[in-house]
């Protein structure tokens, strides 16, 4: 038996053990916020450790299924050339659902089928696995199946600074200059720092979703789109059994994503299970034919933090920043969450890159993250809709009475029965005002306009 001299490769083999365990930034959670943050940090030359609790990045990640092109392109230019996407969306519809009927509006523009696109249907788990590979290529270190349980602190005379994290593994402490909390809704770490109080059921929605398999051709026929194109439908009213929330149907390549999101306090008050709400929506006469013959392949659920502007925690402290769902950055009115998460991750990373240049990771420097969010659409949009949740929660008419009235009015208008139109209008007016007083309706509309307009 011959024993050869060690080769260069063998020498390299031994050197990996000496890799220093020092990082400038630790990102907790490989979801949309964490991946965007880690990618931007690594590209910016910051030594970054990304820690994910799931088996692989994406394994725990759930969203309705729409990825917005612009904010994603800002992070990974031309991502659509190689990322695993389902369909570019060319038509968006909004359905006001009442029992048995639907009032529908929509917008379709084939221009959305061209670069740079507007949005795509995606499976978050596939997209995030792809993006995690980009993060590693950019130079970050990724570890999985590891749960961050606590922080390491540096105690100085005048202040307490986050100086790393503690994980559930042996020898599980690791230090860094700054920690980015991107661990999603109901963040234990944010609460650990005392930045977020316990959330109430009125701040959280639960989303449940099914993935239903259908042939590609059937999807294109049923949703009236060209080959490869996609459509989305948002459903309000009967879709959530009159509760504050929204339903959705998105077209993927050879599946549909169909789901509902409902505020947890409303669910518990109604005693309904979210699965039942989704099941009922699937049986609605306007929805059923879209799904006919489809086979349910997957079932997913997620907590959506919808506390809005008032529940956004303090977003920074000495040595720590909070992004995405953990920071309550969700725009419930426009069903936007993952783009806020990704953009907040990017802005946090840019703040860290500057802090590194200054050599100061104290809250004085990290406050710039808050300013960046304030200057961006993220906090501007959340501020704009700051009272939306309270208004819609305290005023169930928007989800119960108004869809019914819309149905009644539309039905009267579209029924041809030789009744003069003027009489029809009178009849509709009479019915509507008898169900809710004119001043009440005017008040509702004014408040809705003030809140959403």
């Amino acid at each position, binding site marked *: *038996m*011959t*024993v*050869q001299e060690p080769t260069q*490769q063998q020498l*390299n*083999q031994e050197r*990996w*053990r000496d*890799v220093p*365990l020092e990082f400038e930034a630790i990102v907790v959670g490989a979801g949309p916020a964490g991946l965007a943050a880690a990618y931007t940090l690594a590209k910016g030359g910051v030594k970054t*450790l990304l820690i994910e609790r799931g*088996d*692989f990045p994406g*394994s725990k990640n759930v969203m309705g299924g729409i990825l917005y092109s612009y904010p994603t392109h800002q992070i990974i230019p031309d991502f659509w050339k190689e990322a695993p996407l389902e369909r570019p969306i060319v038509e968006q519809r909004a359905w006001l659902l009442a029992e048995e009927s639907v009032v529908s509006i929509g917008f379709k523009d084939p221009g959305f089928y061209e670069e740079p696109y507007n949005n795509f249907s995606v*499976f978050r*788990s*596939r997209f995030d696995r792809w993006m995690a590979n980009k993060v590693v290529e950019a130079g970050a*270190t*990724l*570890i999985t199946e*590891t749960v961050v349980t606590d922080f390491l602190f540096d105690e100085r005379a005048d202040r307490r600074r986050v100086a790393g994290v503690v*994980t559930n*593994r*042996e*020898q*599980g*402490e*690791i230090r860094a200059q700054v920690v980015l909390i991107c661990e999603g809704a109901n963040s234990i770490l944010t609460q650990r720092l005392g930045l977020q109080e316990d959330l109430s059921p009125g701040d959280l929605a639960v989303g449940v979703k099914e993935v239903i398999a259908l042939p590609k051709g059937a999807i294109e026929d049923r949703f009236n789109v060209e080959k490869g194109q996609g459509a989305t439908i948002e459903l309000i009213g009967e879709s959530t059994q009159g509760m504050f929330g929204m339903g959705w149907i998105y077209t993927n390549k050879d599946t549909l994503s169909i789901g509902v999101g409902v505020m947890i306090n409303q669910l518990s008050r109604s005693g309904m299970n979210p699965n039942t709400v989704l099941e009922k929506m699937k049986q609605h006469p306007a929805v059923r034919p879209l799904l006919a013959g489809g086979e349910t392949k997957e079932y997913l659920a997620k907590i959506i933090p919808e506390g809005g502007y008032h529940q956004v925690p303090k977003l920074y402290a000495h040595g720590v920043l909070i992004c995405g769902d953990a920071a309550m950055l969700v725009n419930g009115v426009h069903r936007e969450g993952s783009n806020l998460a990704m953009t907040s991750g990017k802005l946090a990373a840019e703040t860290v890159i500057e802090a590194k240049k200054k050599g100061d990771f104290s809250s004085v420097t990290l406050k710039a993250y808050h300013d960046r969010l304030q200057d961006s659409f993220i906090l501007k949009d959340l501020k704009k809709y700051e009272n939306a949740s309270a208004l819609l929660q305290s005023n169930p008419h928007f989800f119960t009475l108004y869809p019914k009235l819309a149905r009644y009015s539309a039905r009267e208008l579209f029924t041809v029965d030789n009744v003069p139109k003027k009489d029809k209008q009178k009849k509709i007016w009479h019915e509507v005002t008898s169900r809710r007083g004119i001043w009440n309706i005017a008040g509702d509309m004014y408040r809705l306009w003030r809140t959403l307009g």
Partner: protein
Amino acid sequence: MNIAVCLKQVPDTSEVRINPKTNTLMREGIPSIINPYDVHALEEALTIRDRLGGRVTVLTMGPPQATDSLRKAISYGADHAILLTDRAFAGSDTLATSYILAGALGRLMDREPLDLIFCGKQAIDGDTAQVGPGIASRLGWPLLTYVTKIDGIDPTNQVFQVQRKIEVGREVVRCRLPALVTVVKEINEIRYAPLPDLIRAAHYPVEVWTNADLGLDASQLGLKGSPTWVNKISTPPMREKGEVLAGSDVAPAETARILADKLIPHIVVPNR
């Protein structure tokens, strides 16, 4: 003790779907893991090394993505990892796979002598349990399958003793070294890698061998070298739901009697 462990990266699911047209596994979208039996093989190798010294080398044949599994093995504490990857290897059945792995192990032994090779008893995707025995046969090494326990190793006299799970019980075998062992899950508990090892493993440069390194006979590789083909795959019919006897707090003896009456005709309980 120098030990090699053969790992297979497999799809992580007990419900792998089968493409009805091509009769092949649909791996799209299904995450990959190290075959669970192979993790126990690795654990046993690491335990022996920790006690007796030496090196543990892990090998896998697969696409470049199999690097993930090798890095994971490194995080558990393996010393060295080799990926066998080549387009010529694609589509290999167990005959071709054992040929390639035996060739790679032979090359490894040109560099360092091996005392033991560990494999899992079978892979959870193919379930053939043929590759381990195939390697032993090609190397002309003794083979011990379904091992539940290693009783002891005597490196000086080059012998070791194991316990094997057999249909009627347990078999205790003494065997000379070197030998190939395939293990079952009962053999050990898997360790959880410490954080520093996990982080360092993420930077581990996996050694890659192609057929240019191995110089194997091309006619015995991949689809060309694989006489096995899958004729048909079908899903077995669902088993009928069993009968449930409503228990009673008042008269458990009565419920037991009903149960016994039902079981006796099925010869589950002897009627004595």
